């Protein structure tokens, strides 16, 4: 089946198998390998992308479902060489170690801060329930998101 998808502002068009997962389309067909795969049951959140404005685990979608969709992946977050405040927060506050869960964490935080620009610690932790990290114990991820929230609010 033929699909048209916009990823990070670039229009793509490909012939794909109906069963192809969106995450495999993004990684293997389009070649954006910043979106990671950590599980096969949609628990880990490593594959989180922004899909028509929503944080979505793209291992749960088929590529054909994404026909016409507008997708933001980690590669599209920095603009003109300028890191997004969330990326900056993760760097400043040591919100990553091995880096594997990081793209999903950052994009989950992206939606979180759109919905709630000034989240409490409890709110941040609750919203990260769908993203697993084995390295950081989440402590510095919480701090990274707090940093980003402050920065985005111009504080």
């Amino acid at each position, binding site marked *: 089946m033929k699909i048209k998808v916009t990823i990070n502002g670039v229009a793509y068009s490909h012939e794909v198998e109906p069963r192809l997962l969106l995450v495999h389309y993004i990684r293997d067909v389009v070649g954006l390998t910043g979106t990671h795969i950590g*599980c096969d049951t949609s628990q880990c959140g*490593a594959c989180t992308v922004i899909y028509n404005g929503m944080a979505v685990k793209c291992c749960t979608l088929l590529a054909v479902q994404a026909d016409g969709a507008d997708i933001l*992946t980690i590669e599209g977050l920095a603009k003109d060489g300028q*890191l997004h405040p969330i990326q900056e927060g993760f760097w400043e506050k*040591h919100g990553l170690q091995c880096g594997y869960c990081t793209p999903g964490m950052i994009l989950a935080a992206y939606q979180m801060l759109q919905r709630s620009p000034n989240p409490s610690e409890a709110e941040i932790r609750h919203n990260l329930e769908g993203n*697993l990290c084995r390295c950081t*114990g989440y402590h510095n991820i919480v701090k990274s998101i707090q940093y980003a929230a402050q920065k985005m609010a111009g504080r």
Partner: protein
Amino acid sequence: MATATRLFGSSIKRREDPRFITGKGTYVDDVKLPGMTYAVFVRSPHAHARIKSINTAKAKSAPGVVAVFTGQDVQTGPLPCAWLLPGIKIPPRPVLAQGKVRYVGEPVAIVIAESAYAARDAAELVDVQYEPLPAVVDCQKAHAKSASQLFDDVPENQSFDWSIGDKAKTDEAFKAAAVVVKQRLVNQRLITNAIEPRACAASYAPATGDLTLWVTSQNPHVARLLIAAFILGMPEHKLRVISPDVGGGFGSKIPVYNEEVAVSWVSKALGRPVKWTAERRESFMNDAHGRDHITEAEMAFDKAGKILGLRVTTHANLGAYLSTMGSLVPSYLYGPLLSGVYTIATVFCRVWGVLTNTSPTDALRGAGRPEAAYLMERMVDLGARSLDMDPAELRKKNFIPADKFPYQTPVAFVYDSGNYGLALEKALEMVGYKKLREEQEKARKSGQYLGIGLSTYIEASGPAPSQVAGALGAQAGLWESASVRVHPTGMVTVFTGSHSHGQGHETTFAQLVADDLGIPIEHVEIVHGDTGAIPFGMGTYGSRSAAVGGSAIYTSLQKIKEKGRKIAAHLLEAAEGDIVFEGGKFSVKGSPDRAKAWGEVALMAYLAHNLPQGMEPGLEVASFFDPPNFTFPYGAHIAVVEVDPETGSVKILRYVAVDDVGKVINPMIVDGMVHGGVTHGIGQALWEWGVYDDNGQLLTSTLMDYAMPKADQLPMYETDRTVTPSPVNPIGVKGAGETGTIASTAAVANAVLDALAPFGITHLDMPLTPARIWQAVKAAGKK
């Protein structure tokens, strides 16, 4: 050490992060080569069965399939176990099953196709006929004459019977005891779950005979040696192993596994690149698991609470085969830790290593040391309960005094340095211990159950020295390599045998170098994870990178500076002894204007127009650092929890960690490792459990069934440190990667059981799930 810039000790931001936060890291699954094929493994659905037949015809003719191979085709050496204990039996572990399968998930066949989807389809078409055999999963039950045997020549499934300490002396000490506490402790099986699943890609060049293997390994050189020399039987120098960005290891990426060998073999056979990436389900089944001990422990005290002796017998579940370090973890990484931080006159520990129809076990963050720390700290708490003493006071009474170092324990280790009382005092102060106990008392009266749990742990990190390891059965050395290359412009590339899979070596090692040479950190590049570029190295595990790998770098730097000093002395027409090196400049003592900058000396080393007579050109040194001893990080952790007896749920209210990891290169990075380590240990105490049913089916084979710690279950951590430099390496560091895990399991378990004390509950096995707690509270109520 040069101190001009003092990068050593400062929390600079990580240099590797820009690529990770922009999605530009390169993990193994990101590797894509022209003509790549994809591998899918057919795995055993049975825990124990004879293979009657394998029919691959249908699979071979499926669309897109390139080849299908079984154990009959892939004839290689077995996957080796690298630590030999006296009398150990190591039954061969084939790359693909040979005639029999012994655990669910054991690879039976490999299907190669033009796409991963096609390979997966075809794998379904491989028809394997099995004759199921009785399975045994419990390591105590497996260790019996009547138990089903995995291997004909391994009676009672016993791989080894290992002991340490003085049995007669320990038995004698127990006779004199006023109080003996006795407890059966089950240290449950854990499954590692690094968020990046294991992966490998192999590419063979028929024209040259070179094989390149990308693999998610913590120790690429060890993988190369074992795969080339012992399994595939190919020249070691013709195999290049690259471990690029690796998404967490935690021990599970130390062993050499079936998949990378099979994929390498297939790439050679087909002359095409082959890639395999684990699905999480496969990680659950075939990544090495951890822990799984059943232990009987007894601790003897005198009337005043002095520990007189410790007697331990442990059944350690090795799984169906011995993994690479499967025999080391429950023996030398466990028994020698059973003196803890305490003066105990005598300790005896016996361990039976038992084979069962489960996934092989190996290192999992802490590896043996968390099992020991949990045992020690639970037993001390049980002692405190029995003696009616405060657990902090009982610990203080038994600490090895600060003036007794180096300290010889009764179980082989000589501890390097420490001040255990200081760490505990600090933690007690941070948590407000006295007041907290009062609050606890008050809360109990109003039906609220707070628990305070202590863990004053010790760990042995940076395993060493090689000679001793060899005498104890290691089939490898435990040193580390570092090659420092100074370029003509004075820029520096360091090739380290350590491997970073989250540790941040590109930052901390560069701090070490920039500081020591007095050059900008931007002028330093750290290269790791490529056997084609780096001298043989041992890799990263056992919290060894800074202590052993960092010291190797430091050693090379001293030799580089020595040569630089000779060149500078020659150029400045001064005596070598008069040259001082500071702030990136060689100058003559007393006349700082007579100086040569670092870059000038580096350039002259390569121009070689004017070098001291007989000196070779160039400025490059490789060092191999073999430390004289382990380092022994320690600390005091305190968990404060609230248990709801109505639901059995546990809430962690506070967590205080005071660690002594010696000198600290980057405090931010060390704190981060403590947070992650503590979380891993909390996971074991409260949630994580790798469960097999009696037939050997893995019941926890997805992240839906296996409970990983999540953000909303955890508090913000309160961390601090004491600093006792290690005397066994030139930079005074210990290890920080595992301390949190080693400490926190016992701290949280002790806290929960402290909360449950009013119900008369003295012990529950982990994980301390709501169901277990609720049942125990109900049962206690009936009494």
